[in-house]
């Protein structure tokens, strides 16, 4: 018993002592009158090397160029998403951004509750009312939507033209409607330039963990490459890093997603279907600062340069000029509306 009290006392003293430690460099919570922006990340969070990092990059750019003060929140389970947004809104942030379609409902209700705060939702999902009309988001909420299928169409065409094989591959993360958009656009692109090509499309799983299983991604990719696929497009978060590993191992090609993922496997990333989340986030912040922010739907497609594919000094050697010209032509046709890209199965 004495020993027990001794342990209790020792722990208590240690804790009290540690409470007094105040390391240099410990941040205090910000205050002041700079533009304040709050960002709540989706599952995966900062460092996912694609989607969330895009939002992070946009916000950081705003903080450097516009002097905005940015706070990031990484929620855990479901109810934390609303809590995270609310935390920021209640603190009187000027702009609160939810990164991911999953924030849709929470953003909608909070935007109504805090009409003086500007909200933005990356990949905000629009709802359709009984009559089939799109329900407009609240006036202080910007829905930042991307036409992933358009970008995916272009990289699909590219994969088919450069691949040198009648088979091209696709690896998705969680088997879900958002990722189907990527898959459908990609397939359409492949078929458009190569009607007799087949697309092997596989998913890493059925739970959100499927976006974080690179081991599975690598195995899926290896098996596709061994079936004669030369190029695989992934839309699978961290799982896709496994796809690049497989591409490195066998000396084939992968196509990145969301951000320019060339550096994940230099020389083996044919291109990336970029989704300018950074641009959209930066623009939203900029508009709030300039006082021109309005709610509504912002579509980022090929026309707005919101989606696209990477073609720069890194991969120029991998893509023949004729192919590049063909892709650019397709791009023009989509922008002109002569090609419509499907987005659902």
């Amino acid at each position: 018993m004495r020993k027990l009290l001794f342990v209790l006392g020792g722990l208590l003293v240690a804790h009290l002592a540690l409470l007094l430690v105040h390391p240099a460099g410990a941040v205090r919570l910000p205050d002041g009158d700079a533009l304040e922006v709050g960002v709540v990340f989706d599952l995966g969070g900062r460092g996912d090397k694609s989607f969330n990092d895009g939002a992070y990059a946009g916000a950081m750019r705003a903080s450097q160029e516009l002097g905005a003060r940015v706070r990031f929140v990484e929620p855990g389970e479901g109810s934390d998403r609303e809590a995270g947004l609310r935390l920021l809104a209640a603190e009187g942030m000027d702009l609160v951004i939810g990164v991911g379609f999953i924030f849709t409902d929470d953003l909608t209700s909070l935007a109504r509750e805090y009409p003086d705060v500007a909200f933005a939702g990356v990949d905000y999902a629009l709802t359709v009312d009984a009559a089939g009309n799109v329900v407009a988001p609240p006036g202080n909420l910007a829905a930042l939507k991307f036409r992933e299928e358009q970008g995916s169409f272009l990289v699909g065409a590219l994969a088919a033209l450069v691949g040198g094989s009648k088979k091209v591959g696709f690896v998705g993360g969680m088997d879900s409607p958002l990722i189907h958009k990527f898959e459908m656009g990609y397939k359409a692109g492949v078929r458009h330039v190569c009607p007799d090509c087949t697309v092997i499309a596989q998913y890493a799983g059925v739970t959100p963990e499927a976006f974080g299983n690179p081991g599975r991604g690598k195995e899926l990719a290896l098996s596709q490459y061994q079936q004669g696929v030369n190029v695989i497009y992934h839309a699978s978060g961290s799982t896709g890093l496994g796809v690049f590993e497989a591409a490195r191992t066998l000396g084939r090609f992968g196509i990145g997603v969301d951000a320019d993922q060339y550096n994940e496997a230099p020389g083996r990333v044919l291109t990336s279907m970029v989704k300018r989340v950074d641009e959209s986030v930066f623009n939203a912040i900029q508009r709030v600062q300039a006082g021109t922010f309005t709610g509504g739907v912002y579509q980022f497609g090929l026309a707005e340069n919101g989606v696209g594919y990477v073609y720069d000094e890194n991969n120029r050697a991998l893509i023949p000029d004729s192919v590049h010209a063909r892709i650019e032509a397709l791009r023009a046709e989509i922008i002109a509306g002569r090609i419509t890209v499907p987005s659902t199965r």
Partner: protein
Amino acid sequence: MILLFLAQTLRIAIPFLFAAAGGALSERAGIVALTLEGFMLGGAFGAVLGSYYGGSAWIGIAAGVSAGMALGAIHAVACIRFRADQVVTGVAINLFAVGVTRFFLDVAFQSSSNSPRVAGFGGEGLSALTALAANPLVWMGVAVMPVLAFVVARTTFGLRVRAVGEHPQAAASVGVPVTRVRYVAVVWSGILASLGGVYLALDQHQFTDNMTAGRGFIALAAVIFGRWHPVRAGIACLLFAAAETLQIQLQAAQVIPSQFVEMIPYLLTIIAVAGVVGRSRPPAALNQADA
């Protein structure tokens, strides 16, 4: 094609084999191995830290194994010295491993999901088979079960592990240091299982949050499926890996929804536990606090 199927099965099986080896050793010594998932995750993160700061995959292996050792030691102290419930500590170790790797992923790399790319094994532009053969961890993984089987059956340590897991009082009565044997077994279980994580991480050249994705539980199922015998457990690992390979191949064919294909290994396990091995006997002293 068959060769490629087998190669893929083997690749998928390697982490299972390491983890199941650790599981078999620990359970034979009477300590429940619900911790395998945590050990693997710790090993994977340690490997990436070691490889990143040390610049070599071998340093990564050393660091990953150290992480597994440390987690094994924590588990051993908790359930041997403090006689905590082994299932509870197992769950706690897994939770702890997830949290610690996430926290220090953030501390070390300011990321919530991925580490930077680190040195690993395997060159580039190889065939799948040469890539497999170039990875020393593959060879270790293939060897681990036969070696463990030999250790358990033919060495003094193995004899003592078996005695301690069945009847610790009897072992103690003839001067076998029960506590020490269990400590050694659990720490080795940490080392072996962590190698499974090390393989995953170095094969990917990076750490991803929770990258073991339930493989530790499959490995435990393989141990039970193999009725606690290393070689049989190894065969069970290969079986599960083959099921996953099949799943990958079947999914490409897209005949049934992926969710159902996904269930196959888990359903197999339940059927196995209920039917095939339901009546088989685990080590008698498993999950008994009193030595």
